[in-house]
């Protein structure tokens, strides 16, 4: 009885709103049988976005986008508010998940050349969405508005200012003035909370509409190159013969994978908590060590390793040229083979991109180009003397900053060459010339060392001879 009433109520609602009539054909549209686990990354990206919207709205209920208040309100969310740490953690890990998944989705689509006819616009809307997601990631880390967040604004501003002619205008637009101040954070807040999510909503809508319009692509087959003249007809024919309804035959995999994604996001948030806040956003506090979130470490590394003369091309070229190349890709290549086995260049590009990403990310994390400000003094047993010029020289290499950049027996930074065996590599005279005059990337120390100090440092350095079986801390 109760059941029948419920059914009657649903029928009434369904008739008026048209779920079975208008929505079901989409949900249950025929998809290729072989669309299996390869295809779960797009829907998982959308799931991660839903996590971001839900947690983001919650955070916005307590977050205050103001000079001092932003940092204080985040501390409140993290340390005091019920579930605050969990929600902020979900937003942070959700961001990582979304960036990771959107990249995997993009690589999969590229590898399978799904961007070819008739799905060119699917790809192009996807590329726009990809860049907006990166923009969300960047503005999101900035909204933490700790020291790192404030200095991220400076870095963004400086990068924008390299644009020829209109650079300073873009910078002042970003800052909302000529310096970081009260009008800066509110602007980034509006980008992160209104403008970019708006573009994502619209973009995802269009992206999904195009997905339904052109159908889910088949797994690439080396015997079925895309020919725009016959593709649609053949696709329809094959689909009629072997296709399955999207719901539930294909969609269950998306649901399983999305469950895993959300589980990992919530799990990480609960176990590890949100990323720690850096020092307060006082621009007068210079003891900040600005560092982007992990997904941009590779770019951070690129900016350090490049010769300065190429720099402009990378600062402006990577975002602009990268976007244009990706965006226009299907306009140049929209037919022919889709199978990776027939497209060795595509496979090569993916492998090279992944390898560069991993290597540069490790470099970006280790920052070997940065002076190591926290370097320890050399212990007496490493210096090898307890008094006299060698001992004093061993102290001076620390206090005069040599060790910020040079490694000595496992102590010190990595900006410059290792000095553990320098006593065998350079003569006394060479060392004096080198320290006084500096050299490639090494400052001249002539004005900051007196001759006595210099002589002690050289005395010490001449004792740096590696014995093959020696003990060095590593």
């Amino acid at each position, binding site marked *: 009885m109760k059941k029948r009433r419920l059914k009657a109520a649903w029928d009434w609602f369904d008739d008026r709103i048209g779920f079975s009539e208008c929505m079901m054909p989409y949900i249950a549209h025929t998809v290729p049988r072989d669309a299996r686990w390869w295809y779960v990354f797009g829907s998982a990206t959308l799931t991660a976005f839903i996590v971001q919207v839900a947690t983001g709205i919650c955070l916005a209920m307590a977050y205050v986008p*103001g*000079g*001092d*208040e932003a940092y204080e309100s985040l501390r409140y969310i993290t340390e005091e508010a019920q579930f605050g740490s969990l929600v902020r953690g979900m937003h942070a890990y959700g961001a990582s998940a979304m960036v990771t998944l959107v990249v995997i989705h993009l690589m999969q689509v590229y590898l399978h050349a799904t961007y070819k006819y008739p799905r060119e616009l699917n790809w192009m809307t996807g590329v726009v969405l990809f860049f907006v997601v990166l923009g969300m990631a960047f503005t999101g880390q900035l909204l933490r508005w700790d020291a790192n967040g*404030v*200095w991220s604004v*400076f*870095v963004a*501003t*400086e*990068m924008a*200012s*390299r644009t020829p*002619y209109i*650079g*300073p*205008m873009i*910078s*002042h*637009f970003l*800052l909302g*003035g*000529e*310096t*970081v*101040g*009260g*009008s800066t954070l509110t602007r980034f807040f509006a980008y992160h909370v209104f403008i970019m999510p708006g573009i994502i909503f619209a973009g995802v809508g269009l992206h999904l509409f195009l997905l339904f319009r052109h159908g889910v692509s088949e797994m690439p087959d080396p015997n079925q190159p895309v020919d725009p003249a016959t593709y649609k007809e053949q696709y329809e024919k094959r689909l009629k013969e072997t296709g399955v309804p999207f719901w539930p035959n294909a969609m269950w995999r998306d649901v399983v994978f999305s469950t895993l994604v959300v589980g990992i996001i919530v799990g990480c948030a609960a176990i590890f908590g949100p990323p720690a806040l850096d020092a*307060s*956003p*006082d*621009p*007068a*506090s*210079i*003891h*900040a*060590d*600005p*560092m982007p979130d992990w997904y941009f470490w590779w770019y*951070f590394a690129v*900016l*350090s390793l*490049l010769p*300065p003369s190429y720099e*402009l091309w990378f600062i402006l070229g990577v975002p602009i040229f990268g976007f244009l190349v990706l965006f226009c890709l299907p306009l140049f290549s929209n037919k022919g083979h889709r199978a990776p086995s027939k497209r060795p260049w595509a496979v090569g590009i993916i492998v090279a991109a992944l390898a560069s990403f991993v290597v540069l990310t490790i470099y970006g994390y280790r920052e070997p*180009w*940065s*002076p190591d*400000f926290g370097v320890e003094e050399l212990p007496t047993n490493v210096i090898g003397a307890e008094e006299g010029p060698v001992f004093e020289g061993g102290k001076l290499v620390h206090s*005069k*900053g*040599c060790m*910020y950049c040079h490694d000595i027996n496992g102590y010190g930074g990595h900006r410059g060459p290792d000095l553990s065996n320098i006593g065998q590599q350079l003569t006394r005279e060479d060392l004096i010339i080198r320290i006084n005059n*500096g050299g490639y990337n090494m*400052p*001249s*120390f002539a*004005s*900051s060392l007196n001759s006595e100090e210099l002589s002690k440092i050289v005395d010490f350095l001449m004792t740096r001879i590696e014995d093959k079986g020696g003990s060095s801390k590593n």
Partner: protein
Amino acid sequence: MNQTPSDKQCCKETEDRRSFQVRLSMFLSGVIGALIVLPGVGFVLAPIFKKTKQKWRTLGRVDDYQEGATVLVSFEDPSPEKWAGVTAKTAAWLRRVDKEKFIAFSINCRHLGCPVRWVEGPELFMCPCHGGVYYKDGTVAGGPPPEPLDRYQVRVRDGNVEIHTAAVPLTTTLTFDES
């Protein structure tokens, strides 16, 4: 069918009218769009064209600064918003060269704007981001920075050291500005 000429007349008229209606609606939609968007565009772009009137800010007594020493000073932006909080502050490295002369360096590295630190022992400014290094006079000693550290104007008035506020120093490539 038995269409009369007057029928045709009517339909032709309707078509004319319809194309007029299309054009009118398109045009008015454009007007509505412009009326809604233009004030907002002006509001959002205004900071680009706003010229801030820079001010002299007092840092402290001349005697507070040792000759030859480089210290961190901070001062307030020329026209801070009431809600700016700590972000209304800017920092500089102030170096007392001799009895009379002071130099104030911007703390922004000329590479990508990170805060450089003064390291006492080797007398160098070092940047924690990409390894930029500068001598005590602000010239580049190593790493990627393309230009020396920017300087603020400093003056001594009535025994006080004063600094002239300025925009964030931007490292530019090609500009309209000839200087």
